[in-house]
């Protein structure tokens, strides 16, 4: 997605390219905006944080001699008196994937300098994220009402609550921060800051639609983490 032409430097493909890029005595990530590289490094470190949470969850769940609560029942919703397993979680997953798709399209339209489409799609992404957080609040209050606490719960192993609140809470926090930034960037796109190359608040960097891709990376990462939480915490 980056501009591939660098003056006076031959870009080779594949692993040969990796060797020559790395040993070029210049910037290593050819044509990658520094903001994008830094976002990737941040996401890498964030990956490690989430991995530590999920690994500690594996360790905690694997080493308890009390039965783990049946997530299929704990997270079921009653529709017309019939319990539907994991219904809310499934809807949350679809909402998050929808918002990930709109974000990907926003990045595309941003690079095409289609200001209106880009703006509306980021707004749609923000609304999707807000819906997700709203449903998570509902899920949390339902479980707290049913007596799930970080130190115990009525369904099984006591560790369940602490892992649940820690992992989904930290993910929900990421979503919330993302939603705030999505709304800010909606404004910035509609106001034309990236067409007029207006500078940002804390930087001398001129506004550019690459910022939408950087925001998109963060948002896709939030979706990516949810894929793992959905698999390991809810389905396993």
């Amino acid at each position, binding site marked *: *997605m*980056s*501009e*591939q032409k660098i003056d006076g430097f031959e*870009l080779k*493909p*594949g*692993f*040969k*390219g*990796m060797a020559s*890029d*790395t040993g070029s005595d210049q910037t*290593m*990530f*050819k044509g*990658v905006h520094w903001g994008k*590289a830094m976002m*990737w490094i941040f996401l*890498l470190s964030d*990956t*490690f944080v989430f991995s*530590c949470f999920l*690994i*500690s969850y*594996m*360790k*905690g769940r*694997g*080493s*308890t*001699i009390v039965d783990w609560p049946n997530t*299929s029942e704990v997270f079921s919703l009653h529709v017309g008196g019939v319990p539907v*397993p*994991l219904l809310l979680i*499934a809807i949350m*997953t*679809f909402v998050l*994937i929808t918002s*990930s*798709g709109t*974000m*990907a*399209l926003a990045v*595309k339209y941003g*690079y*095409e300098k289609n200001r209106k489409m880009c703006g509306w799609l980021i707004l749609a992404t923000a609304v999707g994220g807000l819906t997700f957080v709203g449903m998570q609040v509902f899920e949390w209050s339902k479980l707290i009402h049913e007596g799930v606490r970080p130190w115990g719960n009525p369904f099984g192993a006591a560790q369940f609550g602490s892992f649940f609140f820690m992992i989904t809470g930290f993910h929900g926090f990421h979503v919330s921060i993302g939603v705030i930034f999505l709304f800010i960037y909606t404004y910035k796109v509609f106001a034309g800051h990236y067409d007029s190359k207006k500078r940002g608040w804390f930087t001398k960097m001129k506004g550019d639609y690459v910022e939408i*891709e950087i925001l*998109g*990376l963060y948002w*896709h*990462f939030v*979706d*990516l983490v949810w*894929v*793992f939480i*959905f*698999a390991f915490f*809810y*389905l396993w």
Partner: protein
Amino acid sequence: MEETNKMEEPNKKEEQTSTQKIGIYLWIWGLLFVLSFFSYMVDWYQFQGMLRWSLILFFMFLKAGLIMAFFMHLFWERYALVNVLLWPMTAIACFIFLMNAEFQYTLFSRFFYFVVGGA
């Protein structure tokens, strides 16, 4: 090297606009929906044991791969960036392996001292 050359090809074609065709995003989007639906079905039909775990992992890695490769554009990035991002994941794999051994030992100790009552 043949394969990597092919991977770079679409990039060169798109260089003027520096964006991909909309079709690829819609395809990936649709695939993510379908895969999520399938992983929900794993719970719906209450598959158990190895079948359940392998299906969950299969759909999870497929979804994660699609998101990273296409939505996060890693498929089109240069190997210098891709490798910097993906190799540290092996450290996580090592950590999972270590903690796997650890929880089995903890579980054994708990059974031994809490249930059996020690030596």
